[in-house]
């Protein structure tokens, strides 16, 4: 009956339903309701009712009766789990009831006493709810009605805050606050109470009524706790009670100060001077002399006063920020508090600073470190607050602001052996930086730049005691907090990188090359991504790249040691990241530059890159990669990385010559060149050029792979073995090249990928023709056979290249064209081909390679695709498991195949297909239980066996003894994880038959 009420009630006009009868009828209907869904409706119903029958509620007993019905439900006690079919959560009920409670001011005489009463209950939920309801009632019932309860509310809130505030939040910010249920509730109660207190203050205080504020500030308990916590030496490490009192008092005062300028003035006027006295700051005596610091230090530091003053400062800062955001009246901001802070900021800064300077000494003497840590946190926060007042409204004079920044930067530079303080200071500096940016104060910005940023950037150039990684951490954190700070940071960083690049590569300084790796790391992982996401810096890093290229143009003597490979990789990554972020025209400029320098520097024969010439001619004319000078090697690496990261629309001049160059180096075994070639092929926008290019490249590759020895450069025919070696190396390079090329075409969904896979497959199968010749006992032929095998194996691995994802090229980051589902398409076209090839093959070695290719093809494939083709996939999968497990080189492949198999075993549809093979599967898995090369394989095999126990009982029961026998061996495995899995698996198989476990 209740269900439709709210809707209908809205449509009924009040005139029709005159009289109390209707209201009482509803009250009766609502009374004793227990179904949660109905209750939610009921509470809404009461709300609507109140709206309609406002006049009747004026008579007291109607409101009372209605409220009585509601009040039985408070606080909502509802323990059903969410998973229940009610679909009503406690929060829904509670919120609905809250709305009903606050729906009319007529409830006030009944609701407020009830809430205050429940607030003193011991049930945490009741407390939280009472506070929430009270807060809402305060807002809804109107100040006039509530004023009579002001005193009671304050007493109740005071009681809750003093007794329930957990450890001060500011102190334990590093420690997780939410530990366990009880702590959670306490925390919740405290936050709700403080919210409620703030609402109360805002409601009851207007400029001409200060009674409530006076009530709080002059409260006996507040006064008493203030005296006790600021008494010298009152704080000690173990005194939790005092601690709680302190944080409670801090929260009350800061809520009051935070509520309005007026409240802020009152609090500062009453407490701030006393705090200063407690801290030992006397305006007359402390004139920033060094002696004064020592004096402050030598007394036992008054932690309570320190904490409270920081809290007060922070609340006044927050107050300004909120006032500025909400209105534009700036004249009323300044008051007593402003002048007090202005007066004391100098000495306060010194006091905080001195607190930060001592700890090392004291902790070294074995003083309690916890206590010192709290003092440090407090002082750092104090300095931070003083420096983060809103721009021009700051009461802190310029001198103090500079002092504060000086203190922090000094800590950053010289106190790195104290990581705790160092991190805190860095955090504060970052906060100050972002605060300056928020209020757009150019004056402060200048000071900050001068003191902090310049100083840090200077550190990059000279040797400092501060370790480089810390400098970089600091500089990147500070630089990335706002836009204005990043440009000097980028500039300084790029200059430093350029100079250490030259030192590393020209002067062969080992330290510089190590430094440069750190630089590049920071540049790539922090600065560049930030620039790209913020999007406001134009072409970040472009100058750096151009500069590097220009330097390479001017300098001839470049050296590169083998141990600098890491550096080179980082340089290439940087190039790629920079280029990828540039616009098309700038990419073009960079590419042109690199290409021209390369051509000029490598001094290539003019006809080497002619389009018309066959690739093998070019191949002979261009020197091998290892014969290139270091500079040219580097240039080639850079050129390849630049090409890899280009946009699709970036115009390429000399496409053919560039491609030829890359192609030649691909064949010479230069992997980045192969990747660059693939990137170009993936992105070429023009269909005609694309077709031509593909034709040209494909021809070149297949001419190398078709293995016509006559075509080979005759000069290499002098030595048979060497020639053989050369030839197969060339072929391996060609296979890798064509695999990358094929991947590029596959990703853009080009049809020729079919031809490419056929070329690769042919290359794989060509091995079988050679095998019979192994009866020859000439050593040359043995080498040849091995060489052919290597070529064929790289062809098998080409399938891995084709289908794996690469993070250095051909991905979204580097603007590759990626058609969705390209892997699936490749799989469905390749499966029949591989299937028949494996069937027809009769050489065991080639067959193993074919299985390897098949393994690579299915290992990354989504399960649904495989399950759809289960009839073909499963037999091949099982065969490859048994064929491949003999070679240690296949261990990763075996693992991924096992993962595929486990997918089948868990998938519903897969189970149906695999059930016919279950005995073979178990045979294979048992064999893998003792797989020596990889622990994960053994573990996964056991997990697969466990999964099989979910199969129909009749099928697997006969295999039980066999499995249990094999598992006994796994108990003795040398790895713990395997043993544990074996125990689980054993239990699953043993308990299959009956309740009791028998062996």
């Amino acid at each position, binding site marked *: 009956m209740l269900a439709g009420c709210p809707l209908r009630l809205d449509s009924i006009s009040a005139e029709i339903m005159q009289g109390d009868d209707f209201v009482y009828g509803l009250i009766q209907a609502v009374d004793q309701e227990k179904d949660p869904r109905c209750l939610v409706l009921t509470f809404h119903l009461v709300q609507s009712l109140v709206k309609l029958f406002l006049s009747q509620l004026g008579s007291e007993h109607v409101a009372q009766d209605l409220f009585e019905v509601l009040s039985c439900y408070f606080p909502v006690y509802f323990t059903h789990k969410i998973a229940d079919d009610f679909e009503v959560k406690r929060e829904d009920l509670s919120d609905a009831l809250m709305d009903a409670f606050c729906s009319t001011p007529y409830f006030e005489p009944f609701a407020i006493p009830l809430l205050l009463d429940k607030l003193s209950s011991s049930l945490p939920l009741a407390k939280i709810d009472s506070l929430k309801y009270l807060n809402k009632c305060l807002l809804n019932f109107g100040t006039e009605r509530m004023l009579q309860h002001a005193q009671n509310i304050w007493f109740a809130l005071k009681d809750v805050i003093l007794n329930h505030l957990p450890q001060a939040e500011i102190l334990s910010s590093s420690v997780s606050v939410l530990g366990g249920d009880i702590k959670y509730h306490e925390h919740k109660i405290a936050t709700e109470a403080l919210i409620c207190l703030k609402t109360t203050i805002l409601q009851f205080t207007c400029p001409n009524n200060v009674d409530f504020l006076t009530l709080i500030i002059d409260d006996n308990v507040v006064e008493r706790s203030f005296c006790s916590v600021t008494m010298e030496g009152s704080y000690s490490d173990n005194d939790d009670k005092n601690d709680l009192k302190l944080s409670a008092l801090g929260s009350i005062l800061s809520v009051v100060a935070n509520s309005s300028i007026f409240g802020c003035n009152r609090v500062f006027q009453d407490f701030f001077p006393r705090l200063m006295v407690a801290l030992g700051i006397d305006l007359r005596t402390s004139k920033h002399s060094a002696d004064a610091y020592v004096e402050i230090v030598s007394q036992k530091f008054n932690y309570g006063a320190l904490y409270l003053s920081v809290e007060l400062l922070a609340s006044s800062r927050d107050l300004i920020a909120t006032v500025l955001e909400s209105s534009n009246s700036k004249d009323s901001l300044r008051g007593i508090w402003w002048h007090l802070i202005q007066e004391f900021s100098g000495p306060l800064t010194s006091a905080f600073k001195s607190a930060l300077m001592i700890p090392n000494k004291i902790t070294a003497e074995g003083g309690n470190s916890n206590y010192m840590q709290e003092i440090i946190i407090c002082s750092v926060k104090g300095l931070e607050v003083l420096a983060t007042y809103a721009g021009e409204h700051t009461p802190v004079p310029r001198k103090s602001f500079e002092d504060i920044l000086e203190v922090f930067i000094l800590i950053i530079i010289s106190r790195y052996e104290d990581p705790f303080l160092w991190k805190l200071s860095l955090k504060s500096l970052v906060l100050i930086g972002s605060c300056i940016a928020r209020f757009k104060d150019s004056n402060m910005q200048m000071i900050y730049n001068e003191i902090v940023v310049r100083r840090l950037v200077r550190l990059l150039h000279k040797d400092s005691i501060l370790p480089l990684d810390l400098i970089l951490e600091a500089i990147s954190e500070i630089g990335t907090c706002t836009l204005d700070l990043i440009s000097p940071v980028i500039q300084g960083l790029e200059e430093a990188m350029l100079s250490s690049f030259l030192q590393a590569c020209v002067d062969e300084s080992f330290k510089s090359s190590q430094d440069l790796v750190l630089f590049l790391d920071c540049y790539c992982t922090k600065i560049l991504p930030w620039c790209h996401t913020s999007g406001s810096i134009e072409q970040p890093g472009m100058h750096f790249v151009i500069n590097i290229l220009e330097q390479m143009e001017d300098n001839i003597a470049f050296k590169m040691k083998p141990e600098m490979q890491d550096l080179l990789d980082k340089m290439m990554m940087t190039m790629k990241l920079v280029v990828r972020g540039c616009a098309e025209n700038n990419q073009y400029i960079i590419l042109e530059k690199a290409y021209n320098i390369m051509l000029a520097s490598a001094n290539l024969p003019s006809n080497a890159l002619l389009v018309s010439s066959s690739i093998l001619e070019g191949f002979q004319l261009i020197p091998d990669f290892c014969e290139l000078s270091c500079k040219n090697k580097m240039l080639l690496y850079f050129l390849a990385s630049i090409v890899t990261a280009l946009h699709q629309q970036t115009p390429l001049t000399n496409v053919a010559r560039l491609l030829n160059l890359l192609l030649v180096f691909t064949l010479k075994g230069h992997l980045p060149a192969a990747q660059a070639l693939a990137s170009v092929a993936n992105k070429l926008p023009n269909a005609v050029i694309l077709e031509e290019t593909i034709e040209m490249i494909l021809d070149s590759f297949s001419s190398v792979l078709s293995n016509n020895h006559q075509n080979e450069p005759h000069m290499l025919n002098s030595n048979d073995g060497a020639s053989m070696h050369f030839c197969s190396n060339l072929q391996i390079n060609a296979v890798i090249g064509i695999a990358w090329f094929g991947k590029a075409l596959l990703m853009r969904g080009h049809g020729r990928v079919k031809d490419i896979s056929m070329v690769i497959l042919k290359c794989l199968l060509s091995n079988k023709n050679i095998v019979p010749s192994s009866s020859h006992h000439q050593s040359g032929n043995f080498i040849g056979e091995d060489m052919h095998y290597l070529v064929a194996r790289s062809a098998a691995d080409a399938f891995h290249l084709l289908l794996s994802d690469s993070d250095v090229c051909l991905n979204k980051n580097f603007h590759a064209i990626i058609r969705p589902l390209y892997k699936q398409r490749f799989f469905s076209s390749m499966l029949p081909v591989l299937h028949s090839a494996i069937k027809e093959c009769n050489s065991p070695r080639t067959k193993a390679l074919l299985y390897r290719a098949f393994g690579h093809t299915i290992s990354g494939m989504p399960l649904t695709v495989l399950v759809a083709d289960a009839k073909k996939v499963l037999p091949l999968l099982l065969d490859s498991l048994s064929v491949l497990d003999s070679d240690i080189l296949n261990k990763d492949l075996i693992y991924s195949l096992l993962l595929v198999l486990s997918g089948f075993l868990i998938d519903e549809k897969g189970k149906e297909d695999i059930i016919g093979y279950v005995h073979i599967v178990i045979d294979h898995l048992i064999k893998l239980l003792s797989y020596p090369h990889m*622990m994960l394989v053994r573990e996964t095999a056991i997990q697969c066996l466990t999964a099989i126990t979910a199969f129909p009982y009749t099928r697997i029961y006969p295999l039980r003894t066999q499995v249990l026998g094999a598992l*006994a061996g796994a*108990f*003795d495995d*040398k*790895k*713990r994880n395997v*043993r544990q899995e074996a*125990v689980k698996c*054993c*239990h699953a198989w*043993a308990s299959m038959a009956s*309740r*009791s*476990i028998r062996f």
Partner: protein
Amino acid sequence: MTLGLINANPVVHAKKERIVRAEDNHAADAVDSLDVFDSVRDIRDPEHPYSLEQLSVLSEESITVDKKLGRIQITFTPTVQHCSMATVIGLCLRVKLLQSFPLHFKVDINVSPGSHADEESVNKQLNDKERVAAALENPSLRQLVDECLCSSEL
């Protein structure tokens, strides 16, 4: 069997935190006392819905493993002196170890000295192969043991 519980109100201790071991990809992990403890700590007490660890019947220190000789020695402490469940607990331990460790380990199970009124005979009964086998043939005893072990599989 006596009616009612032998120890009606046992002291329950907190469970210790599980130690997650660092993964070492190359070295072999030998069986150690923590391994053994991990496998038996969750066995339920025959009388109470608490684990042996919670009742402090077992601890990691009360287990020694000798890899060379292939021996596992467990000393457990019954909650009360005259506990007739001591033999059942011992039987549970033996069955559990049998299921979890290779058969070549020799397992010795004893009550800790002075913790049981009938110490000697309990020890003798627990380490006698024939009597253990006979006990496991007894359907009701077998069921009791299985129930105790069952909870540890959760």
